[in-house]
């Protein structure tokens, strides 16, 4: 790298601050990515290599743990369950939450703001306090250990989450867009679906992804509300980590952990090009 052009002090300052920012970014990335890197690394180690001090970076990799766990029927079933539950609750929440968020952002309803705040505040209740009542309700309804049970349970916290994110997204769009569409021949719903939703796709998609990730990794409700049939991957991880008989099997833990993370990463990469923001650019005077 060449030295910064000595022409102006200003230039030097910006390039220094630029470099500082890049270095900060790298530091933060390392902080977040290292544990994942370590997890993936460990999952390929043999039991003997896991606990060495100093930790080994070079070792003979093995797929032993993966082969063992991928062959276990419960792991694949759990993976499928997790996909069903995450996709189901994510989609349900995005539809309901986005429409609720739109209503809060745009429709003049008496007390809408208070109502929205109440829904948000309901999230202040610790989930653990809800788990047992929810279990009792689910049992009364004959809904224990079913996919729909978790989908509904997750929607209770995903819908408010989506609603608030999408509310502020819709607020950032000029109101005149819908008004223009309504004058051009749309109903309120027509304006929402023909103009606002297409413009909001990036926002909707990021929100959907975050919701699905939240559902994907949820443990508490999955633990309480499901048993064999509809149980999800995080429950398996908890089981491995809390195995009091054999002690924590770190190889298994990291391998199943990696299996859990990979679909999320693949999914995020697939939709990444839709995540660009700024689609609404050009709507107004500019």
């Amino acid at each position, binding site marked *: 790298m060449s030295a910064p052009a000595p022409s102006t002090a200003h230039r030097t300052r910006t390039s220094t601050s630029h470099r500082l920012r890049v270095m900060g970014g790298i530091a933060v990335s390392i902080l977040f990515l290292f544990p994942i890197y370590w997890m993936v690394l460990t999952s390929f180690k043999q039991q003997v290599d896991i606990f060495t001090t100093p930790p080994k970076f070079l070792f003979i990799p093995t797929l032993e743990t993966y082969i063992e766990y991928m062959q276990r029927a419960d792991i694949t079933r759990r993976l499928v369950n997790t996909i069903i539950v995450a996709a189901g609750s994510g989609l349900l929440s995005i539809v309901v939450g986005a429409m609720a968020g739109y209503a809060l952002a745009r429709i003049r309803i008496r007390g809408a703001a208070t109502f929205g705040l109440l829904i948000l505040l309901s999230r202040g209740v610790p989930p653990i306090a809800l788990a047992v009542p929810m279990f009792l309700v689910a049992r009364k309804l004959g809904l224990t250990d079913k996919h729909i049970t978790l989908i509904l349970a997750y929607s209770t916290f995903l819908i408010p989450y989506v609603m608030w994110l999408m509310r502020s997204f819709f607020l950032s769009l000029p109101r*005149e867009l819908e*008004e*223009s*569409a309504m*004058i*051009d*021949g749309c*109903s309120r719903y027509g304006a929402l679906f023909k103009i606002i939703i297409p413009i909001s796709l990036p926002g909707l998609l990021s929100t959907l992804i975050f919701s699905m990730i939240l559902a994907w990794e949820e443990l508490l409700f999955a633990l309480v509300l499901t048993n064999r049939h509809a149980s999800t991957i995080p429950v398996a991880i908890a089981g491995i980590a809390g195995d009091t008989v054999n002690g924590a099997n770190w190889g298994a833990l990291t391998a199943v952990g990696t299996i859990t993370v990979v679909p999320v990463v693949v999914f995020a990469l697939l939709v990444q090009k839709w995540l660009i923001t700024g689609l609404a650019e050009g709507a*107004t*005077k500019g």
Partner: protein
Amino acid sequence: MSTVQIRDARKSYGSVEVLHGVSLDIEDGEFVALVGPSGCGKSTLLRMIAGLEDITGGDILIGDRVVNHIAPKDRDIAMVFQNYALYPHKNVRENMGFALRQRRIRKAEIEERVNNTAQILGLENLLDRKPRQLSGGQRQRVAMGRAIVRDPNVFLFDEPLSNLDAKLRVQMRSEIKELHQRLKTTTIYVTHDQIEAMTLADRVVVMNGGVVEQEGSPLDLYDNPASLFVAAFIGSPPMNFLEGDLVDGTNLVLADSTALPLPVGDPKGRSRVTVGIRPEHFTIGDSGWPATVSVVEPTGSETQITARLAGHIVRILIRGRTATKPGETIHLAIAPEYVHLFDAAPVPQLADLEDVA
């Protein structure tokens, strides 16, 4: 094309009434400008006509149909917003054709109408661009095109030019006028720029604080302002105002007791008045009110002179040029028929009248 009638229209937000009963009859094909200072309720009234705001009281008729409870989409109106509100994910062609598609018009006809309109507005080469690839002026044109292509009963404009730079604004102003002369569609045009209103409209409606202050043809408002507010609002440079006592119909006695000869008003008695005189109605001569010149601003075709008259600043506009220099004393004469008399009241300040936008 259609008439628009507004009968005692009222609008409240919560307990605050912002339109206090506005009535207006707009003829078929007429171009009406709503002007007034910021917050006077122009946009609110326009949006009520469009159906974007509920009507708290009164009736609005488009043609002979009361539209109070009719959805915007069924009013057959087109609106151009101040911020244009182009659909950002659609290209210019789709933006302009959107309303026609909603009405399930045949593809071929949509294509033809969009192309025709694009040609009128000089947008032929931009049809495949997205709004973000257009300049501010081009976006404005697309917004106009989107309205024109529909051939609606009524055009509604809400300050469509206020985001353009001065030169473009003047150009678009004459284009809008030309378009109206060609299409003859009933148009309601909101602006806070009185020049825009005066140059464009068949009829100007001056609003103030949620009521109609005065309506009339542009020159009628200019020549016969019914209130101090209209007098101060219409005209640029603005009318000069002098407050004082009119004594025996011969003299205007100012607060500092300076007596200025002014042969108007009742021949007997003394009344408190505000006198208004347009800058171009002063003539400079050998006799008249003595004033000291402070600034001379020639523009070539005319010259604006700022002078002090008994402590008051007055503006004088004369055709052509003058040899008058700052510091000189000039004498201002005024023909009685050009003197506007108002009941004494504080003159609305220009700062309140002109939007700071």
